[in-house]
């Protein structure tokens, strides 16, 4: 369902980024990169309020003519960005939320691995499989 999924670290460098290989990957990378500004904006807007009440799911960050970009940020400022096809109108907000939740859970599993140093690229096979399952439905 998703066309591109990215996990961005707190310092705004990618821990994991993967897109369906049909199109130019660089375009997706660029989209994710630009979405980071939007994410920061949303975080800082809410940050003045109580941080605890900030919801993790950020919703639609910005739409383009072909794609929509959704964002999700964890309490440790790790961001998940998902790009979905605009033509896929069947995708509802709830589904996006559940996909982000799955991503978050898998990410937590990766963190639980003592051999994983926070800040490394994510190379866990379980994580990859989970992401593949989310992306494969496009094709």
């Amino acid at each position, binding site marked *: 369902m998703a066309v591109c999924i990215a996990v961005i670290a707190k310092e705004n460098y990618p821990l994991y980024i993967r897109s369906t290989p049909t199109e130019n990957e660089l375009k997706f990378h660029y989209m994710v990169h630009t979405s980071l500004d939007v994410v920061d904006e949303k975080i800082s807007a809410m940050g003045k309020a109580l941080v605890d009440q900030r919801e993790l799911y950020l919703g639609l960050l910005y739409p383009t003519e072909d794609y929509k970009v959704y964002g999700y940020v964890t309490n440790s400022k790790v961001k998940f960005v998902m790009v979905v096809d605009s033509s896929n109108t069947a995708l509802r907000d709830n589904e996006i939320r559940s996909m982000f939740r799955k991503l978050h859970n898998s990410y937590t599993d990766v963190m639980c691995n003592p*051999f994983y140093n926070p800040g490394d690229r994510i190379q866990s096979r379980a994580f990859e499989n989970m992401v593949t399952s989310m992306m494969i439905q496009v094709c």
Partner: protein
Amino acid sequence: MEVAAGGGCGTGPPLLLSDSEQQCYSELFARCAGAASGGPGPGPPEGTRVAPGTATAAAGPVADLFRASQLPPETLHQITELCGAKRVGYFGPTQFYVALKLIAAAQSGLPVRTESIKCELPLPRFGMSKSDGEIRFGNPAELHGKKVQIPYLPTEKNSHKRMDDEDKQQESQSPTMSPLASPPSSPPHYQRVSLSHGYSKLRSSTEQMHPAPYETRQPIGQPEGSSSEGPGAKPLRRQASLIRSFSVERELQDNNSNYPDEPWRITEEQREYYVNQFRSLQPDPSSFISGSVAKNFFTKSKLSIPELSYIWELSDADCDGALTLPEFCAAFHLIVARKNGYPLPEGLPPTLQPEYLQAAFPKSKWECAIFDSYSESMPANQQPCDLNRMEKTSAKDMADFPVPTQDVTTGDDKQAANSGLLHAPPALPPRPCPTQSEPVSEADLHPQLNRAPSQAAESSPAKKDAIHAQPPSKPIRRKFRSENQTTENQEPAAAVGGAASAAMVKPHPTVQKQSSKQKKAIQTAIRKNKEANAVLARLNSELQQQLKEVHQERIALENQLEQLRPVTVL
């Protein structure tokens, strides 16, 4: 044709061999003798023993051949004695032929007597007479190229029948010190290419329990202690090829093992070894090892970090950043497999799943193992215990020390269970995961002397499951939950009044039985406490140092702050 069985033997009737027998025997003898010259196994160690002019079959190939006959070891020893090789110390042609004839007799069901060989007998059957030689020759070449393997075998044999206690101690100590480095005492043992060889060898070693190969393995590289077998064992000494080749035989024959090609199945000996290793890191087998401790431990295996990361991913089924005993065994097993050259599987094999492991090896066995090997393994594990303790900064493991000692000495179950659970380390906030069903009522149904560990065992997985059902919670909630669990355990336990009292009677006889062990247990407990004290003192000094450093840093920072603050002096 007649071959006089005199000469070397002295006694024994003349041997009547038919043509086919003669042919077969001479071929086998030639192969054994030829293998002796070509293979790594030396002939009789004292070369002067060889009678001039006769060829001798080296004991190694001969022993392999005998074992290939699939006779029980006692029979083989009887045969060895009868044929006279034991007396003279080597297998000359006469001894060899007599032995073969006796093997044929035994295989036909006749008793092993010299009279048996007088009659017509079929040819003795050997499991793999043809391919013996090639395999034996093939192996040594492979051997020298391979890295030395993980010596899980010595410890496992140690935990089973073992002639010498000192050897056992020595061998059990060295693996625990550096579990994944080879002890110098057993270098040539386990340079196996594929794990299945080792596995079937393990199985066969437990099931057949040859005293002779034990002897051979024992003195390899070590001072010869036992050799109660006498000359029968001497020719079999220093035959590293013996072990390899008979393990290959085992694999090909596969009459002892039920699971020929399943490298992912943990055998009993390996299980013991893993449990011992677990205990060296974490005295309470029902609790778990934290991620950092496990990381340090597994890093010693010298596998690459991505591989270790993947192995962790496979084995930590509930993804909580800590390893319970079955998870630890699975992880260790995967590491062993990887070191033996097995590619890591895509998913956790079913035989390594925690549920399977827990079902296959019931907890009561582990807890009995606590008492059995507690006093033995504790002295051996003190050292690595301390080394590992020093790496940990949390005091929770220190607190775990009194818990097992209480179990051992007082048997005051509930209090011990309480303290144990309260000190159980919640490494990371638990995650919503599919829960495993572990009936809490098991604690009531299995009252034992070691009820506390069993309660801890059942309630901690149950506690973990209960926590998993909740959203990620803080550690405080976990302790609270654990208290609930223990109260729940206590209430039904108290409610089952009659059954409980009857069950309490059961532990008492067992207490009395173990009264002799209690002194030892108390002594070990005292030792443990002393060690714990020493460790805590060291920890204290380290923390003091750190505190000093932090103070200094703070002072430095405050100075900087002073400097940076604009000075408003009016």
